[in-house]
Protein backbone atom coordinates (compact mmCIF):
# COMPACT_ATOMS: atom_id res chain seq x y z
CA UNK A 1 0.00 0.00 0.00
CA UNK A 2 2.73 2.42 0.95
CA UNK A 3 4.53 1.75 -2.33
CA UNK A 4 1.42 2.61 -4.30
CA UNK A 5 1.05 5.87 -2.44
CA UNK A 6 4.72 6.66 -2.89
CA UNK A 7 4.45 6.02 -6.63
CA UNK A 8 1.47 8.34 -6.84
CA UNK A 9 3.33 11.06 -4.95
CA UNK A 10 6.40 10.64 -7.13
CA UNK A 11 4.44 11.11 -10.33
CA UNK A 12 2.46 13.97 -8.86
CA UNK A 13 5.71 15.81 -8.17
CA UNK A 14 6.96 14.98 -11.67
CA UNK A 15 3.76 16.40 -13.15
CA UNK A 16 4.11 19.58 -11.15
CA UNK A 17 7.71 19.99 -12.31
CA UNK A 18 6.70 19.39 -15.93
CA UNK A 19 3.89 21.93 -15.71
CA UNK A 20 6.28 24.46 -14.20
CA UNK A 21 8.81 23.87 -16.99
CA UNK A 22 6.21 24.16 -19.76
CA UNK A 23 4.61 27.32 -18.40
CA UNK A 24 7.88 28.69 -17.09
CA UNK A 25 9.43 28.53 -20.57
CA UNK A 26 7.05 31.33 -21.54
CA UNK A 27 8.42 33.57 -18.80
CA UNK A 28 11.97 32.53 -19.60
CA UNK A 29 11.55 33.59 -23.24
CA UNK A 30 9.75 36.84 -22.57
CA UNK A 31 12.10 37.61 -19.67
CA UNK A 32 15.20 37.03 -21.80
CA UNK A 33 13.86 39.25 -24.60
CA UNK A 34 12.96 42.04 -22.16
CA UNK A 35 16.27 41.87 -20.31
CA UNK A 36 18.33 42.03 -23.52
CA UNK A 37 16.09 44.33 -25.53
CA UNK A 38 15.13 46.99 -23.01
CA UNK A 39 18.61 48.61 -22.72
CA UNK A 40 18.64 49.25 -26.47
CA UNK A 41 15.07 50.46 -26.66
CA UNK A 42 14.51 54.11 -27.54
CA UNK A 43 12.04 56.31 -29.34
CA UNK A 44 14.16 56.44 -32.50
CA UNK A 45 13.64 52.70 -32.96
CA UNK A 46 9.91 53.26 -33.33
CA UNK A 47 9.82 56.55 -35.21
CA UNK A 48 12.74 56.55 -37.67
CA UNK A 49 13.63 54.58 -40.73
CA UNK A 50 17.22 53.30 -41.00
CA UNK A 51 19.60 56.19 -41.65
CA UNK A 52 22.86 55.98 -43.60
CA UNK A 53 25.17 53.49 -41.88
CA UNK A 54 22.37 52.04 -39.76
CA UNK A 55 23.75 48.56 -40.24
CA UNK A 56 27.17 49.50 -38.90
CA UNK A 57 25.74 51.03 -35.76
CA UNK A 58 24.78 54.56 -36.82
CA UNK A 59 21.44 56.09 -36.01
CA UNK A 60 18.01 55.22 -37.23
CA UNK A 61 15.13 52.94 -36.35
CA UNK A 62 13.02 50.17 -37.74
CA UNK A 63 9.89 52.12 -38.62
CA UNK A 64 10.21 50.72 -42.16
CA UNK A 65 9.89 47.17 -40.83
CA UNK A 66 7.07 47.98 -38.41
CA UNK A 67 4.99 49.65 -41.14
CA UNK A 68 5.93 46.96 -43.67
CA UNK A 69 4.80 44.23 -41.29
CA UNK A 70 1.54 46.02 -40.57
CA UNK A 71 0.92 46.36 -44.33
CA UNK A 72 1.69 42.70 -45.03
CA UNK A 73 -0.23 41.29 -42.05
CA UNK A 74 -3.13 43.70 -42.51
CA UNK A 75 -3.40 43.17 -46.25
CA UNK A 76 -3.18 39.41 -45.90
CA UNK A 77 -5.80 39.32 -43.16
CA UNK A 78 -8.27 41.44 -45.14
CA UNK A 79 -7.72 39.44 -48.31
CA UNK A 80 -7.89 36.19 -46.34
CA UNK A 81 -11.12 37.25 -44.68
CA UNK A 82 -12.75 38.03 -48.04
CA UNK A 83 -12.01 34.47 -49.10
CA UNK A 84 -12.57 32.68 -45.79
CA UNK A 85 -15.98 34.07 -44.81
CA UNK A 86 -17.68 32.70 -47.96
CA UNK A 87 -15.86 29.39 -47.50
CA UNK A 88 -16.92 29.05 -43.86
CA UNK A 89 -20.51 29.95 -44.74
CA UNK A 90 -20.54 27.47 -47.58
CA UNK A 91 -19.20 24.61 -45.46
CA UNK A 92 -21.70 25.27 -42.70
CA UNK A 93 -24.85 26.37 -44.48
CA UNK A 94 -24.84 25.16 -48.04
CA UNK A 95 -23.75 21.58 -47.47
CA UNK A 96 -26.70 20.26 -45.52
CA UNK A 97 -26.91 16.51 -45.53
CA UNK A 98 -23.48 16.09 -47.03
CA UNK A 99 -21.69 15.51 -43.76
CA UNK A 100 -18.94 13.40 -45.28
CA UNK A 101 -18.08 16.13 -47.77
CA UNK A 102 -18.06 18.94 -45.25
CA UNK A 103 -15.99 16.86 -42.82
CA UNK A 104 -13.50 16.08 -45.59
CA UNK A 105 -13.27 19.79 -46.35
CA UNK A 106 -12.52 20.46 -42.69
CA UNK A 107 -9.75 17.86 -42.67
CA UNK A 108 -8.35 19.44 -45.84
CA UNK A 109 -8.19 22.84 -44.18
CA UNK A 110 -6.60 21.30 -41.09
CA UNK A 111 -3.96 19.78 -43.35
CA UNK A 112 -3.44 23.13 -45.09
CA UNK A 113 -3.02 24.65 -41.64
CA UNK A 114 -0.22 22.16 -41.01
CA UNK A 115 1.73 23.04 -44.15
CA UNK A 116 4.79 25.00 -42.96
CA UNK A 117 5.22 28.62 -43.89
CA UNK A 118 8.47 27.91 -45.77
CA UNK A 119 6.44 25.84 -48.26
CA UNK A 120 3.95 28.69 -48.66
CA UNK A 121 6.91 30.99 -49.13
CA UNK A 122 8.45 28.77 -51.81
CA UNK A 123 5.07 28.43 -53.52
CA UNK A 124 4.48 32.18 -53.35
CA UNK A 125 7.87 32.59 -54.99
CA UNK A 126 6.80 30.23 -57.80
CA UNK A 127 3.65 32.30 -58.35
CA UNK A 128 5.77 35.43 -58.56
CA UNK A 129 8.17 33.88 -61.05
CA UNK A 130 5.23 32.62 -63.09
CA UNK A 131 3.56 36.03 -63.31
CA UNK A 132 6.89 37.78 -63.64
CA UNK A 133 6.91 40.15 -60.74
CA UNK A 134 9.69 40.70 -58.25
CA UNK A 135 9.83 40.56 -54.48
CA UNK A 136 7.34 43.18 -53.34
CA UNK A 137 4.66 44.10 -50.86
CA UNK A 138 2.12 42.42 -53.15
CA UNK A 139 4.14 39.18 -53.27
CA UNK A 140 4.40 39.16 -49.49
CA UNK A 141 0.69 39.76 -49.06
CA UNK A 142 -0.18 36.92 -51.46
CA UNK A 143 2.09 34.39 -49.72
CA UNK A 144 0.88 35.36 -46.26
CA UNK A 145 -2.76 35.29 -47.40
CA UNK A 146 -2.30 31.64 -48.39
CA UNK A 147 -0.82 31.05 -44.95
CA UNK A 148 -3.72 32.61 -43.01
CA UNK A 149 -6.66 31.26 -45.04
CA UNK A 150 -6.68 27.90 -43.20
CA UNK A 151 -6.49 29.65 -39.80
CA UNK A 152 -9.38 31.95 -40.70
CA UNK A 153 -11.53 29.21 -42.20
CA UNK A 154 -11.12 26.86 -39.24
CA UNK A 155 -11.68 29.58 -36.64
CA UNK A 156 -14.77 30.95 -38.42
CA UNK A 157 -16.04 27.41 -38.92
CA UNK A 158 -15.82 26.74 -35.18
CA UNK A 159 -17.45 30.06 -34.35
CA UNK A 160 -20.36 29.43 -36.72
CA UNK A 161 -20.75 26.03 -35.07
CA UNK A 162 -21.57 27.77 -31.78
CA UNK A 163 -24.60 29.57 -33.23
CA UNK A 164 -27.74 27.70 -32.10
CA UNK A 165 -29.30 25.66 -34.89
CA UNK A 166 -32.75 26.97 -33.87
CA UNK A 167 -31.72 30.42 -34.97
CA UNK A 168 -31.00 29.18 -38.47
CA UNK A 169 -34.16 27.10 -38.53
CA UNK A 170 -36.19 30.11 -37.40
CA UNK A 171 -34.78 32.21 -40.23
CA UNK A 172 -35.40 29.48 -42.79
CA UNK A 173 -38.92 28.77 -41.56
CA UNK A 174 -39.80 32.43 -42.01
CA UNK A 175 -39.05 32.00 -45.68
CA UNK A 176 -35.53 33.38 -45.72
CA UNK A 177 -33.14 32.10 -48.36
CA UNK A 178 -29.93 30.44 -47.21
CA UNK A 179 -28.02 33.64 -47.94
CA UNK A 180 -30.41 35.68 -45.79
CA UNK A 181 -29.97 33.10 -43.04
CA UNK A 182 -26.20 33.43 -43.42
CA UNK A 183 -26.51 37.18 -42.91
CA UNK A 184 -28.36 36.59 -39.64
CA UNK A 185 -25.65 34.18 -38.50
CA UNK A 186 -22.87 36.55 -39.52
CA UNK A 187 -24.38 39.25 -37.35
CA UNK A 188 -24.41 36.81 -34.45
CA UNK A 189 -20.75 35.87 -34.73
CA UNK A 190 -19.26 39.35 -35.01
CA UNK A 191 -17.01 38.96 -31.93
CA UNK A 192 -15.91 35.59 -33.30
CA UNK A 193 -14.91 37.17 -36.59
CA UNK A 194 -12.85 39.65 -34.62
CA UNK A 195 -11.10 36.79 -32.81
CA UNK A 196 -10.31 35.17 -36.14
CA UNK A 197 -8.87 38.46 -37.40
CA UNK A 198 -6.63 38.76 -34.35
CA UNK A 199 -5.40 35.15 -34.62
CA UNK A 200 -4.63 35.57 -38.29
CA UNK A 201 -2.96 38.94 -37.80
CA UNK A 202 -0.83 37.59 -34.95
CA UNK A 203 0.37 34.68 -37.05
CA UNK A 204 0.95 36.86 -40.10
CA UNK A 205 2.98 39.54 -38.36
CA UNK A 206 5.35 37.04 -36.77
CA UNK A 207 6.05 34.79 -39.70
CA UNK A 208 9.36 34.96 -41.52
CA UNK A 209 9.64 32.00 -43.82
CA UNK A 210 6.69 33.04 -46.00
CA UNK A 211 7.89 36.61 -46.59
CA UNK A 212 11.56 35.72 -46.93
CA UNK A 213 11.32 35.05 -50.67
CA UNK A 214 8.31 37.14 -51.44
CA UNK A 215 8.33 40.54 -49.73
CA UNK A 216 12.02 41.35 -50.09
CA UNK A 217 13.58 43.99 -47.87
CA UNK A 218 13.90 47.75 -48.09
CA UNK A 219 15.01 50.60 -45.88
CA UNK A 220 12.12 52.73 -47.08
CA UNK A 221 8.48 52.53 -46.23
CA UNK A 222 6.76 51.07 -49.30
CA UNK A 223 4.52 53.52 -51.14
CA UNK A 224 3.06 51.09 -53.66
CA UNK A 225 2.24 47.41 -53.87
CA UNK A 226 5.11 46.81 -56.26
CA UNK A 227 7.87 48.04 -53.99
CA UNK A 228 9.72 45.64 -51.74
CA UNK A 229 8.76 45.89 -48.09
CA UNK A 230 10.73 45.23 -44.92
CA UNK A 231 9.09 43.08 -42.26
CA UNK A 232 9.74 43.05 -38.53
CA UNK A 233 10.84 39.40 -38.15
CA UNK A 234 13.24 39.72 -41.08
CA UNK A 235 14.63 42.94 -39.63
CA UNK A 236 15.31 41.11 -36.37
CA UNK A 237 16.96 38.25 -38.23
CA UNK A 238 19.22 40.54 -40.29
CA UNK A 239 20.26 42.70 -37.38
CA UNK A 240 21.07 39.68 -35.28
CA UNK A 241 23.42 38.27 -37.91
CA UNK A 242 25.46 41.48 -37.85
CA UNK A 243 28.86 41.35 -36.11
CA UNK A 244 28.43 44.91 -34.76
CA UNK A 245 27.33 44.90 -31.15
CA UNK A 246 25.16 48.01 -31.45
CA UNK A 247 23.26 46.51 -34.38
CA UNK A 248 22.75 43.21 -32.55
CA UNK A 249 21.41 45.14 -29.59
CA UNK A 250 18.91 46.87 -31.82
CA UNK A 251 17.96 43.43 -33.05
CA UNK A 252 17.08 42.52 -29.46
CA UNK A 253 15.08 45.74 -29.13
CA UNK A 254 13.24 44.90 -32.37
CA UNK A 255 12.51 41.46 -30.96
CA UNK A 256 11.07 43.17 -27.90
CA UNK A 257 8.79 45.31 -30.08
CA UNK A 258 7.52 42.27 -31.98
CA UNK A 259 7.02 40.32 -28.74
CA UNK A 260 4.95 43.11 -27.23
CA UNK A 261 2.80 43.47 -30.37
CA UNK A 262 2.13 39.74 -30.51
CA UNK A 263 1.45 39.43 -26.78
CA UNK A 264 -1.10 42.25 -26.91
CA UNK A 265 -2.83 40.55 -29.85
CA UNK A 266 -2.84 37.14 -28.15
CA UNK A 267 -4.17 38.51 -24.85
CA UNK A 268 -6.92 40.41 -26.68
CA UNK A 269 -8.00 37.30 -28.58
CA UNK A 270 -7.93 35.22 -25.36
CA UNK A 271 -10.25 37.72 -23.70
CA UNK A 272 -12.55 37.74 -26.72
CA UNK A 273 -12.70 33.94 -26.85
CA UNK A 274 -13.60 33.85 -23.14
CA UNK A 275 -16.33 36.43 -23.64
CA UNK A 276 -17.63 34.65 -26.67
CA UNK A 277 -17.84 31.26 -24.99
CA UNK A 278 -19.70 32.93 -22.11
CA UNK A 279 -22.42 34.01 -24.51
CA UNK A 280 -22.64 30.51 -25.84
CA UNK A 281 -23.66 28.86 -22.60
Amino acid at each position, binding site marked *: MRRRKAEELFFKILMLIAAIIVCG*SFFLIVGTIFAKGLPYMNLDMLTKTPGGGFYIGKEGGILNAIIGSLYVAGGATILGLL*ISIPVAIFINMYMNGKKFLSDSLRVAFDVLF*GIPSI*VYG*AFGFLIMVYFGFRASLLGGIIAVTLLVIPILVRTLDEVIGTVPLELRDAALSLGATR*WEMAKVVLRQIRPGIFTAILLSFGRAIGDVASVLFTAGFSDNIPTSLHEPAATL*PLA*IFFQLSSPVEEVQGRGYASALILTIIVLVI*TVLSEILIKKFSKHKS
Partner: protein
Amino acid sequence: MQIRILKDKILSKLMLVFTLASVSLLLIIGIGLYVHSIPILEKSSWGTLVTSSIWKPLKGLFGFYPFIMGTLWVTGIAIVIALPLCLLTALFVVEYAHAGIRRVLVPFINLLSGIPPVIFGVWGVLFIIPLIQNYIAPHFVEFSTGYSVLAGGIVLAVMIFPLIVSIISEVLNTIPQELKDASLSLGATKWETIKKIVLRKALPGIIAAVVLAISRAFGETIAVLMVCGNNAVVPHSVFDPGYPLPALIANNYGEMLSIPLYDSALMFAALLLFIIILLFNIISRLILARLERKLTS
Protein backbone atom coordinates in the same frame (compact mmCIF):
# COMPACT_ATOMS: atom_id res chain seq x y z
CA MET B 1 -39.06 37.16 -54.79
CA GLN B 2 -37.35 35.87 -57.89
CA ILE B 3 -34.39 38.18 -57.33
CA ARG B 4 -33.87 36.94 -53.78
CA ILE B 5 -33.69 33.34 -54.91
CA LEU B 6 -31.49 34.22 -57.85
CA LYS B 7 -29.16 36.05 -55.46
CA ASP B 8 -29.00 32.99 -53.23
CA LYS B 9 -28.23 30.74 -56.20
CA ILE B 10 -25.51 32.99 -57.59
CA LEU B 11 -23.89 33.49 -54.21
CA SER B 12 -23.97 29.77 -53.53
CA LYS B 13 -22.11 29.09 -56.77
CA LEU B 14 -19.63 31.83 -55.97
CA MET B 15 -18.95 30.39 -52.54
CA LEU B 16 -18.53 26.95 -54.04
CA VAL B 17 -15.86 28.36 -56.33
CA PHE B 18 -14.06 30.02 -53.40
CA THR B 19 -14.19 26.83 -51.39
CA LEU B 20 -12.93 24.63 -54.21
CA ALA B 21 -10.21 27.12 -55.07
CA SER B 22 -8.86 27.31 -51.54
CA VAL B 23 -8.99 23.56 -50.98
CA SER B 24 -7.36 22.82 -54.29
CA LEU B 25 -4.45 24.88 -53.03
CA LEU B 26 -3.17 21.61 -51.56
CA LEU B 27 -3.09 20.09 -55.02
CA ILE B 28 -1.77 23.20 -56.73
CA ILE B 29 1.11 23.60 -54.28
CA GLY B 30 2.07 19.96 -54.75
CA ILE B 31 1.92 20.17 -58.53
CA GLY B 32 3.71 23.52 -58.64
CA LEU B 33 6.59 22.25 -56.55
CA TYR B 34 6.76 19.02 -58.51
CA VAL B 35 6.86 20.76 -61.88
CA HIS B 36 9.75 22.89 -60.69
CA SER B 37 11.57 19.85 -59.33
CA ILE B 38 11.43 18.07 -62.71
CA PRO B 39 14.76 19.46 -64.01
CA ILE B 40 16.68 17.96 -61.11
CA LEU B 41 14.63 14.77 -61.12
CA GLU B 42 15.54 14.30 -64.78
CA LYS B 43 19.22 14.42 -63.90
CA SER B 44 19.14 12.09 -60.94
CA SER B 45 16.55 9.80 -59.44
CA TRP B 46 14.61 10.22 -56.20
CA GLY B 47 16.75 7.52 -54.61
CA THR B 48 20.13 9.10 -55.34
CA LEU B 49 18.93 12.59 -54.39
CA VAL B 50 17.74 11.37 -51.02
CA THR B 51 20.66 9.07 -50.20
CA SER B 52 23.67 10.96 -51.59
CA SER B 53 25.52 13.15 -49.13
CA ILE B 54 27.59 15.20 -51.58
CA TRP B 55 26.33 18.78 -51.72
CA LYS B 56 28.24 20.75 -54.36
CA PRO B 57 25.76 22.97 -56.19
CA LEU B 58 28.48 24.54 -58.37
CA LYS B 59 29.34 21.10 -59.76
CA GLY B 60 25.68 20.21 -60.07
CA LEU B 61 25.81 17.66 -57.26
CA PHE B 62 22.83 17.76 -54.97
CA GLY B 63 22.71 15.16 -52.19
CA PHE B 64 20.01 15.75 -49.63
CA TYR B 65 21.04 13.07 -47.14
CA PRO B 66 22.80 15.43 -44.66
CA PHE B 67 19.81 17.77 -44.66
CA ILE B 68 17.31 14.98 -44.16
CA MET B 69 19.43 13.65 -41.29
CA GLY B 70 19.69 17.15 -39.84
CA THR B 71 15.90 17.43 -39.90
CA LEU B 72 15.47 14.00 -38.31
CA TRP B 73 17.98 14.77 -35.54
CA VAL B 74 16.40 18.05 -34.44
CA THR B 75 12.88 16.66 -34.73
CA GLY B 76 13.81 13.53 -32.77
CA ILE B 77 15.47 15.51 -30.00
CA ALA B 78 12.50 17.88 -29.83
CA ILE B 79 9.98 15.05 -29.48
CA VAL B 80 12.08 13.19 -26.89
CA ILE B 81 12.21 16.34 -24.76
CA ALA B 82 8.68 17.58 -25.36
CA LEU B 83 6.55 14.43 -25.19
CA PRO B 84 7.16 13.38 -21.55
CA LEU B 85 6.97 16.96 -20.31
CA CYS B 86 3.77 17.67 -22.24
CA LEU B 87 2.11 14.39 -21.31
CA LEU B 88 2.78 15.01 -17.61
CA THR B 89 1.63 18.63 -17.92
CA ALA B 90 -1.58 17.63 -19.68
CA LEU B 91 -2.28 14.95 -17.04
CA PHE B 92 -1.65 17.51 -14.33
CA VAL B 93 -3.90 20.11 -15.91
CA VAL B 94 -6.75 17.72 -16.68
CA GLU B 95 -6.65 15.24 -13.79
CA TYR B 96 -4.99 16.86 -10.81
CA ALA B 97 -4.98 20.65 -10.96
CA HIS B 98 -7.67 22.63 -9.18
CA ALA B 99 -9.87 24.77 -11.40
CA GLY B 100 -8.10 27.87 -10.12
CA ILE B 101 -4.63 26.61 -11.03
CA ARG B 102 -5.93 25.43 -14.38
CA ARG B 103 -7.28 28.88 -15.11
CA VAL B 104 -3.81 30.33 -14.49
CA LEU B 105 -1.80 27.66 -16.35
CA VAL B 106 -3.79 27.32 -19.55
CA PRO B 107 -3.59 30.98 -20.66
CA PHE B 108 0.20 30.89 -20.40
CA ILE B 109 0.37 27.82 -22.59
CA ASN B 110 -1.80 29.71 -25.11
CA LEU B 111 0.44 32.76 -24.87
CA LEU B 112 3.45 30.55 -25.59
CA SER B 113 1.77 29.34 -28.78
CA GLY B 114 1.39 32.94 -29.95
CA ILE B 115 5.09 33.79 -29.78
CA PRO B 116 6.53 34.08 -33.31
CA PRO B 117 9.25 31.65 -34.49
CA VAL B 118 11.85 34.37 -34.86
CA ILE B 119 11.50 35.25 -31.16
CA PHE B 120 12.14 31.61 -30.28
CA GLY B 121 15.24 31.89 -32.45
CA VAL B 122 16.45 35.01 -30.66
CA TRP B 123 15.84 33.32 -27.31
CA GLY B 124 17.75 30.27 -28.51
CA VAL B 125 20.74 32.41 -29.46
CA LEU B 126 20.65 34.39 -26.20
CA PHE B 127 19.85 31.63 -23.74
CA ILE B 128 20.17 28.08 -25.08
CA ILE B 129 23.41 28.52 -27.03
CA PRO B 130 25.41 29.91 -24.05
CA LEU B 131 23.80 27.29 -21.81
CA ILE B 132 25.00 24.46 -24.05
CA GLN B 133 28.38 26.02 -24.77
CA ASN B 134 29.29 26.77 -21.16
CA TYR B 135 27.38 24.33 -19.00
CA ILE B 136 26.14 21.27 -20.88
CA ALA B 137 28.67 20.52 -23.61
CA PRO B 138 31.86 20.74 -21.44
CA HIS B 139 30.67 17.68 -19.51
CA PHE B 140 30.55 15.57 -22.67
CA VAL B 141 32.81 16.92 -25.42
CA GLU B 142 35.99 18.94 -25.56
CA PHE B 143 34.61 21.91 -27.40
CA SER B 144 31.28 23.04 -28.78
CA THR B 145 30.16 26.43 -30.01
CA GLY B 146 26.69 25.65 -28.76
CA TYR B 147 25.27 25.86 -32.28
CA SER B 148 24.14 22.27 -32.56
CA VAL B 149 21.24 19.95 -33.27
CA LEU B 150 20.71 19.85 -29.50
CA ALA B 151 20.08 23.61 -29.46
CA GLY B 152 17.68 23.25 -32.40
CA GLY B 153 15.94 20.37 -30.65
CA ILE B 154 15.48 22.27 -27.40
CA VAL B 155 14.12 25.38 -29.12
CA LEU B 156 11.78 23.24 -31.24
CA ALA B 157 10.63 21.33 -28.16
CA VAL B 158 9.54 24.56 -26.49
CA MET B 159 7.82 25.62 -29.70
CA ILE B 160 5.73 22.46 -29.86
CA PHE B 161 4.83 22.42 -26.14
CA PRO B 162 1.49 24.23 -26.63
CA LEU B 163 0.45 22.06 -29.58
CA ILE B 164 1.08 18.74 -27.78
CA VAL B 165 -0.36 19.89 -24.45
CA SER B 166 -3.55 21.20 -26.02
CA ILE B 167 -4.22 18.10 -28.13
CA ILE B 168 -3.46 15.64 -25.32
CA SER B 169 -5.60 17.70 -22.91
CA GLU B 170 -8.49 17.60 -25.35
CA VAL B 171 -8.12 13.84 -25.75
CA LEU B 172 -7.92 13.32 -21.97
CA ASN B 173 -11.07 15.36 -21.52
CA THR B 174 -12.96 12.99 -23.81
CA ILE B 175 -12.36 9.93 -21.62
CA PRO B 176 -15.66 9.01 -19.94
CA GLN B 177 -15.84 9.70 -16.22
CA GLU B 178 -17.59 6.34 -15.67
CA LEU B 179 -14.47 4.46 -16.72
CA LYS B 180 -12.38 6.32 -14.19
CA ASP B 181 -15.04 5.94 -11.51
CA ALA B 182 -15.19 2.20 -12.09
CA SER B 183 -11.45 1.89 -11.60
CA LEU B 184 -11.39 4.15 -8.55
CA SER B 185 -14.26 2.31 -6.91
CA LEU B 186 -12.31 -0.94 -7.22
CA GLY B 187 -9.70 0.57 -4.95
CA ALA B 188 -7.17 1.76 -7.52
CA THR B 189 -5.35 4.98 -6.70
CA LYS B 190 -5.77 7.94 -9.01
CA TRP B 191 -2.35 7.35 -10.53
CA GLU B 192 -3.10 3.67 -11.14
CA THR B 193 -6.32 4.69 -12.84
CA ILE B 194 -4.39 7.09 -15.05
CA LYS B 195 -1.70 4.55 -15.81
CA LYS B 196 -3.96 1.61 -16.58
CA ILE B 197 -7.17 3.21 -17.85
CA VAL B 198 -6.74 6.80 -18.96
CA LEU B 199 -3.43 6.47 -20.79
CA ARG B 200 -4.47 3.27 -22.50
CA LYS B 201 -7.70 4.86 -23.69
CA ALA B 202 -5.90 8.02 -24.76
CA LEU B 203 -3.12 6.25 -26.65
CA PRO B 204 -4.43 6.89 -30.20
CA GLY B 205 -4.89 10.55 -29.34
CA ILE B 206 -1.40 10.78 -27.93
CA ILE B 207 0.00 9.18 -31.08
CA ALA B 208 -1.94 11.66 -33.20
CA ALA B 209 -0.54 14.53 -31.14
CA VAL B 210 3.01 13.25 -31.62
CA VAL B 211 2.57 12.78 -35.36
CA LEU B 212 1.19 16.30 -35.66
CA ALA B 213 4.03 17.67 -33.55
CA ILE B 214 6.58 15.87 -35.74
CA SER B 215 5.14 17.40 -38.87
CA ARG B 216 5.16 20.81 -37.22
CA ALA B 217 8.78 20.39 -36.14
CA PHE B 218 9.78 19.21 -39.63
CA GLY B 219 8.73 22.45 -41.25
CA GLU B 220 9.93 24.93 -38.68
CA THR B 221 12.44 27.18 -40.37
CA ILE B 222 13.79 30.33 -38.89
CA ALA B 223 14.14 29.39 -35.21
CA VAL B 224 16.04 26.24 -36.10
CA LEU B 225 18.14 28.01 -38.71
CA MET B 226 19.32 30.50 -36.10
CA VAL B 227 20.65 27.92 -33.62
CA CYS B 228 21.61 24.82 -35.62
CA GLY B 229 24.97 25.83 -37.02
CA ASN B 230 23.95 25.05 -40.61
CA ASN B 231 26.79 22.78 -41.59
CA ALA B 232 26.02 20.41 -44.46
CA VAL B 233 27.38 17.25 -42.81
CA VAL B 234 25.53 14.39 -41.18
CA PRO B 235 25.49 14.99 -37.41
CA HIS B 236 26.90 12.16 -35.27
CA SER B 237 26.21 13.50 -31.79
CA VAL B 238 23.78 15.97 -30.29
CA PHE B 239 26.59 18.53 -30.05
CA ASP B 240 27.31 18.44 -33.80
CA PRO B 241 25.87 21.18 -35.96
CA GLY B 242 23.16 20.17 -38.40
CA TYR B 243 21.44 21.66 -41.42
CA PRO B 244 17.72 20.88 -41.63
CA LEU B 245 15.84 21.05 -44.93
CA PRO B 246 13.80 24.21 -44.24
CA ALA B 247 16.94 26.07 -43.20
CA LEU B 248 18.56 24.99 -46.48
CA ILE B 249 15.72 26.49 -48.46
CA ALA B 250 15.61 29.71 -46.46
CA ASN B 251 19.36 30.28 -46.47
CA ASN B 252 19.94 29.91 -50.18
CA TYR B 253 17.08 31.64 -51.89
CA GLY B 254 19.40 34.53 -52.73
CA GLU B 255 21.73 32.44 -54.86
CA MET B 256 19.27 30.00 -56.30
CA LEU B 257 18.65 31.82 -59.53
CA SER B 258 22.33 32.28 -60.36
CA ILE B 259 23.43 28.63 -60.28
CA PRO B 260 21.87 26.18 -62.76
CA LEU B 261 19.56 23.57 -61.23
CA TYR B 262 19.92 25.18 -57.80
CA ASP B 263 16.38 26.57 -57.79
CA SER B 264 15.08 23.21 -58.93
CA ALA B 265 17.00 21.51 -56.10
CA LEU B 266 15.52 23.86 -53.51
CA MET B 267 12.02 23.33 -54.89
CA PHE B 268 12.68 19.60 -54.61
CA ALA B 269 13.57 20.17 -50.94
CA ALA B 270 10.28 22.02 -50.49
CA LEU B 271 8.46 19.20 -52.28
CA LEU B 272 10.03 16.63 -49.94
CA LEU B 273 8.90 18.64 -46.91
CA PHE B 274 5.46 19.10 -48.40
CA ILE B 275 4.94 15.38 -49.07
CA ILE B 276 6.18 14.23 -45.66
CA ILE B 277 4.16 16.82 -43.78
CA LEU B 278 1.08 16.17 -45.90
CA LEU B 279 1.20 12.45 -45.07
CA PHE B 280 1.82 12.98 -41.35
CA ASN B 281 -0.94 15.56 -41.12
CA ILE B 282 -3.48 13.39 -42.88
CA ILE B 283 -2.63 10.43 -40.63
CA SER B 284 -3.01 12.38 -37.40
CA ARG B 285 -6.15 14.23 -38.53
CA LEU B 286 -7.78 10.95 -39.47
CA ILE B 287 -6.96 9.46 -36.05
CA LEU B 288 -8.33 12.54 -34.29
CA ALA B 289 -11.45 12.70 -36.47
CA ARG B 290 -12.18 9.05 -35.75
CA LEU B 291 -11.75 9.62 -32.00
CA GLU B 292 -14.17 12.52 -32.18
CA ARG B 293 -16.72 10.51 -34.11
CA LYS B 294 -16.52 7.65 -31.60
CA LEU B 295 -17.27 10.13 -28.91
CA THR B 296 -20.22 11.88 -30.48
CA SER B 297 -21.95 8.71 -31.59
